[in-house]
């Protein structure tokens, strides 16, 4: 094994560009590992973690490019580093460079701007957001790793100026039909959404679209907004705006469980809301203590139906129910398993899907381990090693620092699917596929090979692997929902239009498996 690195002074590139270079280097034969990143302190730690240390790296600045390679031979390391200019050139050519390099440059170019979208490294995001707020501009902060104190400070400034701060850690918003960040193509309509979760916002808006209805605005707040530290400052601003918005007739709130003080404050505010409100707080164990002044759904699917009922007077029925054919399908799957196969493994790109799936299993009394567990006693000691029933958020920090998010690139999920495929006790794999702007252009295509291989491994052991997936997208998305669904079905995957339904299907399978083993 050999390793080497180069440092290019004052060559700054954004993280997605760097991930593209890294992916191309990793395709080179003999390359074991590589890192293509800027010289920030966090990135230097990552390099150190893979054994790349040097005084020159210690001295590098955040706008210096560092490329490190670990390969089978010194020759391969040298070849890759020698070809670096070629890699950079090809990727630079594919996207035209901007002559603007600062917020001030951008504002000079667009003095009539009404929103600044920020996706710079977290340690710089608050600084840029402050400048935008000082210029009376609303802000969408995609960056994460912004301190909670900075978030509070930004949001307090925004409230004073009646400006909106979406984020930090805001993956998605739909403003007047325009998708910002990860977002789907959904029709305009009269359901307004306020969401602390990016994948939750996508799942909700896609289901509304696929049910024939539409969205007025879907406002992302960032994942910490309903914590007691932040106190729902963005949520309350968004509520005022949607309440006053003539296009919006019902408002839906999506979040992880809010802080106790914040839910009380929100409940009080909503008592006087002129429009109907529906809540959905995922991961909550029981009902909210003290109740709420508005109806709450346990699952996103039910929140969609409750919201639609406010504008279309059809009776509400939980969508998460199975047809006779689906129940028969369950029986066939169980009959194909070997006696050893008994566990479910969920591997998710969407954090909300990880949460919602855990909640479904928890409600059924089936313990599930996770890297982001609902119950701390089921925290995986090593997130790379599943225990019994396990659900992993592959978009969590430990998988994404210095690496592409699984919604953009499936490399980490591919490896994990194969690892689960080698476990003879695994009966079910539960996955999600998320379409839309800025996501991978072929999320299904990227995973077909490892899914097929994992299924073959189970067959060779005399069993069968049940693979269940949910699709989050619309037919108007750049990837085309129908096409992606057809592809995944053709590879023998059982597909559902929502995560809740896919997770419930897996949960019912495991329940039946448990009942069967008890009966014996």
């Amino acid at each position, binding site marked *: 094994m050999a390793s080497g690195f180069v440092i290019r002074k004052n060559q700054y590139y*954004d993280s997605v560009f760097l991930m593209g270079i890294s992916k191309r280097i990793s395709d080179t034969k003999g390359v074991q590992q590589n890192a293509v990143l800027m010289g920030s302190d966090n990135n230097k730690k990552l390099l150190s973690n893979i054994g790349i240390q040097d005084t020159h790296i210690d001295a590098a600045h955040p706008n210096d490019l560092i490329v490190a390679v670990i390969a089978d031979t010194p020759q391969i390391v040298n070849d890759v580093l020698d070809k670096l200019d070629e890699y950079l050139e090809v990727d630079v050519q594919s996207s035209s460079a901007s002559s603007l390099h600062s917020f001030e440059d951008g504002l000079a170019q667009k003095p009539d701007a009404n929103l600044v979208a*920020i996706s710079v490294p977290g340690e710089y995001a608050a600084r840029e957001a402050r400048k935008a707020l000082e210029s009376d501009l609303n802000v969408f902060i995609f960056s994460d790793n912004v301190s909670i104190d900075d978030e509070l400070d930004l949001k307090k400034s925004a409230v004073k*100026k009646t400006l909106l701060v979406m984020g930090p850690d805001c993956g998605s918003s739909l*403003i007047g039909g325009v998708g910002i960040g990860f977002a789907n193509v959904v029709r305009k309509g009269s359901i307004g959404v306020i969401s602390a979760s990016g994948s939750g916002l996508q799942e909700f808006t896609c289901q509304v679209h696929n049910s024939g209805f539409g969205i007025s605005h879907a406002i992302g707040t960032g994942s910490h907004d309903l914590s007691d530290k932040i106190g729902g400052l963005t949520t309350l601003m968004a509520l005022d705006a949607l309440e006053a918005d003539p296009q919006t007739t019902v408002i839906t709130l999506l979040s992880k469980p809010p802080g106790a003080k914040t839910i009380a404050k929100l409940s009080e505010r909503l008592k006087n809301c002129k429009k109907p409100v529906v809540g959905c707080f995922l991961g909550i164990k029981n009902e909210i203590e003290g109740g709420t002044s508005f109806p709450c759904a346990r699952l996103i699917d039910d929140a969609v139906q409750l919201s639609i009922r406010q504008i279309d007077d059809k009776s509400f029925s939980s969508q998460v129910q199975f047809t006779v054919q689906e129940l028969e399908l369950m029986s066939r799957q169980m009959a194909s398993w070997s006696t050893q196969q008994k566990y479910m493994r969920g591997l998710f790109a969407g954090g909300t899907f990880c949460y919602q799936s855990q909640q479904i299993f928890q409600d059924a009394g089936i313990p599930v381990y996770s890297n982001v567990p609902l119950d701390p006693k089921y925290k995986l000691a090593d997130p790379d090693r599943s225990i019994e029933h396990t659900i992993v958020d592959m978009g969590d920090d430990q998988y994404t620092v210095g690496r592409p998010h699984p919604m953009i690139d499936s490399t980490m999920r591919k490896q994990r699917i194969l690892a689960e495929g080698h476990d003879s006790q695994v009966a079910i794999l539960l996955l999600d596929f998320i379409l839309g702007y800025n996501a991978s252009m072929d999320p299904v295509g990227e995973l077909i090979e490892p899914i097929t291989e994992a299924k073959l491994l189970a067959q060779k052991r005399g069993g069968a692997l049940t693979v269940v997936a949910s699709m989050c997208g619309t037919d108007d998305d750049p990837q085309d929902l129908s096409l992606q669904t057809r592809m995944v079905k053709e590879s023998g995957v059982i597909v559902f239009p929502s995560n809740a339904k896919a997770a419930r299907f897996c949960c019912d399978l495991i329940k039946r498996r448990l009942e069967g083993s008890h009966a014996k």
Partner: protein
Amino acid sequence: MQNKVDQLLHKPLVIINLGLKRFTESLAEQKVEVVQVDWAPPAGGDKAMEDLLDRLL
């Protein structure tokens, strides 16, 4: 007079995108008026110099 949030919801979006270029590309695809800023760390990434510049400007 409409406040800035109401204006955001009701007027055509005009966006300054700082950072990921693919965000600008997806906004342009949606026919949104957007300008791309190829952002780089201020003061060459020198934190002390950055703090000094912030105080001076």
